[in-house]
C-alpha cells in the first residue's frame, strides 16, 4: 500500500517536472497571444502586399503563400534585430527545403540594407521599405511599432505566431517543426 502511494507521488512529481520544463520551453508562447483587434489584417491583405527588394524589384508576399512564412521586421539600427538574424538564417537553412520561408522586412533604406547584406549576408530575402514597413507591422499587431517583430503565417494566410522582441532558436525550431507539415 505505502509502495503504491510512493509510486503515485513519484509519478506525480515526474509529471509536474516535465510540465515545468515544457512550460519553460514554451515561455515565449506566453507572449504569442492572439492578434489584437488592431491587427485587422487577413490573408488576402498579407499576400497582396509587396515590398521592394534591395535592387528595387517588387516582391509580393503572395509568392510564398504555400510556405510556412516568417515575416521578421528589423532595421540596421536595431541591435537586437541584428543579433537574432543569424539564428533566423540557421532556421532557413534547416527548414527551407521543408517549406519554410523567412522574409526580413526592413524599416530602413535600400542602401543601408544593401550594405548590411554585403557585410552580414543572410540566406533569405531582405525587403527594405522605410516608409511602409512599420505601418504594415502595426496592421499585424505591432501596436507600438517596435523592433524586432516577428510573425508566422501558416500556408493559406492564418497568422499563428507573433512576437515583439527577439525569438530564440529553441522555441522557433520547435514551433516550426510542429507547424511545417500542417
Amino acid at each position, binding site marked *: *500500500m505505502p509502495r503504491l502511494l510512493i509510486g503515485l507521488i513519484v509519478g506525480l512529481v515526474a509529471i509536474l517536472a516535465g510540465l515545468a520544463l515544457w512550460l519553460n520551453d*514554451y515561455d515565449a508562447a506566453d507572449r504569442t497571444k492572439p492578434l489584437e483587434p488592431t491587427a485587422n489584417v487577413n490573408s488576402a491583405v498579407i499576400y497582396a502586399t509587396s515590398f521592394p527588394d534591395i535592387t528595387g524589384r517588387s516582391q509580393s508576399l503572395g509568392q510564398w503563400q504555400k510556405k510556412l512564412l516568417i515575416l521578421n521586421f528589423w*532595421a540596421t539600427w536595431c541591435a537586437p534585430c541584428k543579433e537574432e538574424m543569424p539564428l533566423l538564417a540557421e532556421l532557413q537553412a534547416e527548414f527551407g527545403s521543408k517549406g519554410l520561408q523567412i522574409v526580413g522586412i526592413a524599416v530602413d533604406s535600400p542602401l543601408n540594407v544593401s550594405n548590411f547584406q554585403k557585410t552580414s549576408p543572410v540566406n533569405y530575402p531582405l525587403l527594405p521599405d522605410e516608409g511602409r514597413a512599420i505601418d504594415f507591422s502595426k496592421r499585424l499587431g505591432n501596436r507600438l511599432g*517596435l523592433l524586432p517583430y516577428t510573425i508566422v503565417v501558416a500556408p493559406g494566410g492564418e497568422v499563428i505566431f507573433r512576437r515583439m522582441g527577439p525569438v530564440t532558436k529553441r522555441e522557433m525550431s520547435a514551433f516550426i517543426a510542429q507547424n511545417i507539415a500542417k
Partner: protein
Amino acid sequence: MKLNTASAARCATAMLLVMLTSATSAATTKPEPELLEAEKAFQLSGRMRDDRTIEVRYLVADGYYMYRDRFRFEINGKPLKLTTKQFPPGKIKQDATFGKVVTYRNSVHLLLPVSKPGKTQIEGAAKDLVLKITSQGCADAGVCYPPLHQQLALALGSSAIVTPGETNAGSFSRPAGPAGSISDLLKRN
C-alpha cells in the same frame, strides 16, 4: 488514518488536476511586458535658455535608453551638428553589433547653439524657432523604437518650457510659476 489505494489515487489525481490547472492558467495569463509609447519612454521638453541657446531635456523612463549618435537636429530647416563634446558623457554600452556606443539613461540634457559665435541673433532675425529633433532609443526588454521625429516651437524672448505640440510663442505673460525651469519641471516629476 490509513489510505487505501482508491483514495490515494483520487487524492493524487485531484492534486495533479489542481496543479495542472493553476500552472496552465499562470502560463496563459502571464502578461506581455508592458512597454511605453515612444513619447512616454523618451519625454522631450525644451526652452530658450537665452537668445542664443536652446536647452533640451529628455526624461528617459526606467528600463529605457537613448543612443547619442542617433540624435539629429534641425533649426528652422537648417541642420545643426553637435560635436561629441557638446553632448553629455553618457554611459558606454558594449553592444554586440555596434561595438562601444554612448547611451543615456534617466535623462539627457543638451544645450543647442542657435547662432554663430560672435552673432547675437539668429540668421534672418527669425523670432520664432522650430527645432526638429530625431532621436532613437531602445528598451532593456530587447526591443528598439523607430527613429522618433519631434519638434518644438520656441520663440526668442520666452524662456517658458515647451513640449512637442506646444508653443511658447507670445507666451511672455504665461505664468512661469513652478515650471519656470526644466530643473523645476524635473523636481515636480
